[in-house]
């Protein structure tokens, strides 16, 4: 099992948090894991990018055309970071309208900002998008994700064991995204 995923957005959206959740879920499932993150000045609202490599790797960075998938917290991310994707990759994009893919990518869009506002948790866009991604990738992609939504929920429960309120809100956000998939599948 080897999977390489790019996660992107702007500083403050929780790109690093999502990367960490997935990395910890990988460890729970017995895989080796590498991530690479953006810290420092770019975190002040600038473009931030995480690389996640699950399985046996030596380097923390993903090369162009090698990523299996992209989680984009901003609609512009697909254009900015699409060149990391291999030709049949998946991309899950937070966007108000459908984004046209450049190659044979399976692109799924969802208005995660709106969903996050709906549950009165505007800072949970990252988790809403993650939940949505976990639903759509395992349904329509041949390469299932290395972890399930339950793995991610378990990681959250461990991390936020003594912050019950935050845990409840986080689970709600993930599930909001996960159960939103209904009939919206677009490729």
């Amino acid at each position, binding site marked *: 099992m080897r999977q390489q995923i790019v996660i992107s957005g702007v500083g403050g959206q929780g790109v690093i948090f999502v990367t960490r959740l997935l990395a910890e879920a990988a460890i729970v499932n017995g895989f080796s894991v590498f991530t*690479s993150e953006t810290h420092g000045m770019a975190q002040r609202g600038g473009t931030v990018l995480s690389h996640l490599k699950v399985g046996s790797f030596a380097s923390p960075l993903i090369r162009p055309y090698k990523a299996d998938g992209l989680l984009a917290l901003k609609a512009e991310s697909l254009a900015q970071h699409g060149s990391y994707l291999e030709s049949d990759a998946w991309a899950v994009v937070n966007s108000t309208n459908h984004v046209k893919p450049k190659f044979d990518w399976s692109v799924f869009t969802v208005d995660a900002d709106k969903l996050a506002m709906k549950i009165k948790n505007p800072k949970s866009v990252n988790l809403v998008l993650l939940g949505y991604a976990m639903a759509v990738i395992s349904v329509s992609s041949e390469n299932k994700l290395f972890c399930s939504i339950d793995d991610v929920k378990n990681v959250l429960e461990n991390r936020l064991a003594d912050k019950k309120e935050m845990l409840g809100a986080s689970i709600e956000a993930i599930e909001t995204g996960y159960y939103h998939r209904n009939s919206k599948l677009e490729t």
Partner: protein
Amino acid sequence: MGKRKLMLGNEAIARGLMENCCVMATSYPGTPASEILSSFVAMQKEGSDSRHAQWAVNEKVAFEIAYAGSMTGLRSAVSMKQVGLNVASDPLMSAAYLGVKGGFLVVSADDPGPHSSQTEQDSRLMAMMAKIPVLDPDSPMQAKEMVAMAFELSEIFEIPVMIRPTTRVCHARQDIMLGDIQPNEREADFQKDPARWAATPKFRFHLHQELEKKLKALSFYQKTAPIRLNVETTAQKAVVASGVAAAHTQEIMKDLNIWDAIPLYQVLQPYPLHKEFIKHLMDTYDEILVIEETTGVIEMQLADRHSVKGKLTNSVPMVGELLPEIIQKIVSEFAGVHTEKIDLTSEPGIRPTLCAGCPHRASFFAIKKAAPKGIYTSDIGCYTLGLNLGAVDTVLCMGAAVSQAAGFYHAYKNEKKRPDIVATIGDSTFFHAGVPALIDAVVQKVRFVLVILDNRTTAMTGNQPTPASGLGAGGESLDSVDIKTLVEGCGVKFCKEGDPYNQDEFIPLIKEAVKYSREHGPAVVISRHPCLIDRLWKDRSEQPRIQVEVDDNCDGCTFCIDHFECPALVFNKEEENVSIDPILCSGCGVCVHVCPKKSIKEII
């Protein structure tokens, strides 16, 4: 059997310090090194034994505190970013001569790219200049292992040892096998030896001779010798790499199917490079490719260079991070194998900006109102982003806002028209290197305004405390130094405080300071408002939230966007007007003062 845990490279280094009995750890925050000390503090809280961990006022002070710990026989470490090592270079050069007792590590994190630094300088060159060994980890896991190796080296050879991680090690996460944390069994025991610890130049000559002997022995020390990563084959070519570039190269060579054809050596200790390794390379291979970041430190030690390809032959770029796609191109050309052309063209990203509601933005707006044609010197911190607002003209290095302001004043002194000069510096940076420059400006009667942006924290690097916070690295209560008292102690006659959120009073205050400075000399304004993302402050926040809206009179002139650039002010292209993003708006209410048409209004 240990437990596997996901760890940031910096956490792994801190864990290595904990597992190897480091009992004194000091630092000054700087990306990408900041999390080393904060992780050490967090781990120490979980443990039972008492260790000293602290943020120091600057890297030189941090170095000297930890070094004295080593002189008593205890294991100690100082961590910083690469430009911080410049500040600490004075004690570094001298400590190399004197040597150590307890193991002493200097962790200097480099930033090829650069991602969050003024320079791409290579700390390994500083190690070479100081004549101390340096280890170059390729991953968080290896960084942790190298802490143990470095303490061992340091104590065997009685020498400071540098560990040089780069951004891709510091800010990578990896599953790490935890070892046991050993309790410290040593006691502080300083053995007086003035000929060594207070050596005069005569003794320094002998110490230099000793140092050269140590270096020679280090270049034959087997445990840190380069390792061959793939199996033995006969080949005419070989690749030599170190640090994260070795990790990239390993993956790339496997993908290119040349893993069994070309030997790959990883250098663990780039300086001093092992003598036998140099001889082996020269005797065995016709062509040698060297891949390292950022300067050709290994390459330069390969004395007979006719068979060597690297930075000096323009085979490897001199500038910028060695991203894996760049290494792929270099290695495939060297191996003579075909690889797909990689063209990572991407649309430009979003530039960083001050947070919505950041008090710095309010200060900059007032400064531009009060001295519209001024020269604005500034410094290192979040407020460097004031350049987006046209309120920052210069950024050189820590503390230079004050000394450059003085330099501009002296340069224009004899001109008929002298510009107003307004310097901005953060509270932490003022303590770090601004104070001596301010003393100099007082003595020289420099006519300028210094605005100290006091947000009560070291914001850019993750909200570490400042000397004014009265808090230690672990949140413990300490003594504090008051900025106003300090400024007045430097001899400044005009020193006033204000809250930049309160623009009605703050703009006149800056104007008053500008007027004073034109006739008398230095005027200091302390702009006080806490950082919005500082958790310590958030908990006791009672800042009223001012709800604002844009009324129909907005004609989309974009003055507020261009001169205030708050992320919560959104320009709507189709409607040609501005609106407020309710998610991003912090409710500071400062933008009410910004709109020239008074279209931004408080909702009452």
